[in-house]
């Protein structure tokens, strides 16, 4: 393997909006939200905004659907040496971090802002045509010639629930049925959410039985195993380790990454019991020179309970098919022996669009920097973070180490 990252790039600061289910604030344009997030994250890091020379954005910012990096550069007044717009769904934030780190280590740039804005935009003060409801179905393209349009959407195979449910069915059929293990992931994360005043489920603990008696949405997944959409936003600043030594917070070095993509629709995945995070994690750990068991915390993309279960297995924290036993035998809360999604995960914190996946990055940085307040881990030097896009379509992994 090539040299990979050497820890020369670090996360220096972040900002995270409190996710809310019913947004009550003042709607802002996507560009405005992005600029707000950038300003706040740079202030947190202690970096002058004029020093920004790179950015990573993802998806659609609302006002523009293409030429977004240039539009953002122009809007924020930046001259950039590096710009990326990611299209990796929920894996985008993790993908932003390693791309930013790689660009910095290569000497392409020095200060990179990575942000995801997901609060409501104001209604234009004039009538607009409603969007074509048939143009897209969730994350699937209904444009002519799209494989999804021709072979999947017409059968109702669209959105995320049924795809993840089909992963879960295949997994349990092969390795045994223990829905309580899936539910325990949700319940344990809810315990951590109850220690995070920003979480949408703060103050609302849930038991395994609560999860299993919530309505069945797509067999075998219950409502409480499915992430809660909400509004929010988050940004981080990545810079060189050298510069970060002069800054406000403990630098969090990006010491390993991996990324792997195999399919768009699970029907065409090579295998529904192993997921792309396997190769991504292997590469990330090898690059960092650490074993899975050595990390102090894991922040695992958790759009669904089954995503966490498969990610625990495929990232190497236990063997294939042993995930259910692993979950039964370990305490996944912030107080436990396997701290997993210490902010509550997206299942407990909420999923503000791409800022949902960013929440896993932010929480790892927050813990490593010792800023997690009531849920602060005692050992907080080394974290593993995963990102998942589509339906186990594309996954990214990071190993972060406090300097």
């Amino acid at each position: 393997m090539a040299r990979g990252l050497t820890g020369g790039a670090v996360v220096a600061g972040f900002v995270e909006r409190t996710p809310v289910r019913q947004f009550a604030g003042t709607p802002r344009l996507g560009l405005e939200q992005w600029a707000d997030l950038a300003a706040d994250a740079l202030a947190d890091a202690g970096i002058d905004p004029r020093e920004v020379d790179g950015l990573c954005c993802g998806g659609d910012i609302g006002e523009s659907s293409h030429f977004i990096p240039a539009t953002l550069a122009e809007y924020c007044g930046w001259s950039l040496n590096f710009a990326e717009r990611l299209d990796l769904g929920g894996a985008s934030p993790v993908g932003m971090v390693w791309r930013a780190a790689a660009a910095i280590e290569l000497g392409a740039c020095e200060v990179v802002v990575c942000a995801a804005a997901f609060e409501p935009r104001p209604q234009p003060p004039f009538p607009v045509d409603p969007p074509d409801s048939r143009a897209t179905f969730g994350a699937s393209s209904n444009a002519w010639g799209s494989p999804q349009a021709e072979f999947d959407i017409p059968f109702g195979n669209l959105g995320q629930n049924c795809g993840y449910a089909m992963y879960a069915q295949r997994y349990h059929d092969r390795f045994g049925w223990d829905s309580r293990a899936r539910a325990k992931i949700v319940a344990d994360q809810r315990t951590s959410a109850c220690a995070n005043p920003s979480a949408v489920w703060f103050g609302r603990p849930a038991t395994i039985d609560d999860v299993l008696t919530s309505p069945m949405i797509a067999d075998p997944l219950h409502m409480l195993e499915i992430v809660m959409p909400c509004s929010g936003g988050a940004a981080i600043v990545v810079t060189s380790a050298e510069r970060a030594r002069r800054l406000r917070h403990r630098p969090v070095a990006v010491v390993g990454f991996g990324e792997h993509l195999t399919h768009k629709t699970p029907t065409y995945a090579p295998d529904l019991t192993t997921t792309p995070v396997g190769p991504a994690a292997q590469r990330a750990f090898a690059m960092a020179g650490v074993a899975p068991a050595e990390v102090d915390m894991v922040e695992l993309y958790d759009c669904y309970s089954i995503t966490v279960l498969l990610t625990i297995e495929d990232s190497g924290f236990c063997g294939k098919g042993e995930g259910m036993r692993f979950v039964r035998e370990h305490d996944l809360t912030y107080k436990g022996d396997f701290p997993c999604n210490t902010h509550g995960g997206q299942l407990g914190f909420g999923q503000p669009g791409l800022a949902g996946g960013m929440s896993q990055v932010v929480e790892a940085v927050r813990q490593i920097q010792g800023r997690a307040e009531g849920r602060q881990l005692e050992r907080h030097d080394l974290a593993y973070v995963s990102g998942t896009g589509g339906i186990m379509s594309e996954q990214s992994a990071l190993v972060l180490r406090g300097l």
Partner: protein
Amino acid sequence: MTTAKPRPRPTPTSQPFWDGLARHEVRIQHCAVCEAWVHYPRSRCPVCLTDRLTWETVAPEGTVYTFTVARRPTAPMFADEVPQIIAVVELGVGVHVTTTLVDTDPDDVAIGMAVSAVFEPGDDGVTMLRFRPSQGV
């Protein structure tokens, strides 16, 4: 507001697949170079990337590779099919096909279950490939 269900709209590359279904045949692409079976239809083999693909008629049968029962419609226009059994069927040649199971009790579905093709013609000239449990053993 209800809108019509989204329907497949064939492309020049995929047309032979849909023509086959209209004749109650399941036609799948086969790679003349690496012998891979290919579905959905493509211009090139997703194993070796050759464009030497031929169309073969295969047995209209398979087994359930995985499935879910959508208790809530995945989009409003599918509300009339709830509980809708969305499945991936593995044909005998190994390819995976997205489909729905019809004439099936959701409680009776199991991975590995043998299923047979149901050809469902539509007013738009497109025949849908659905499946039902095979009769007998």
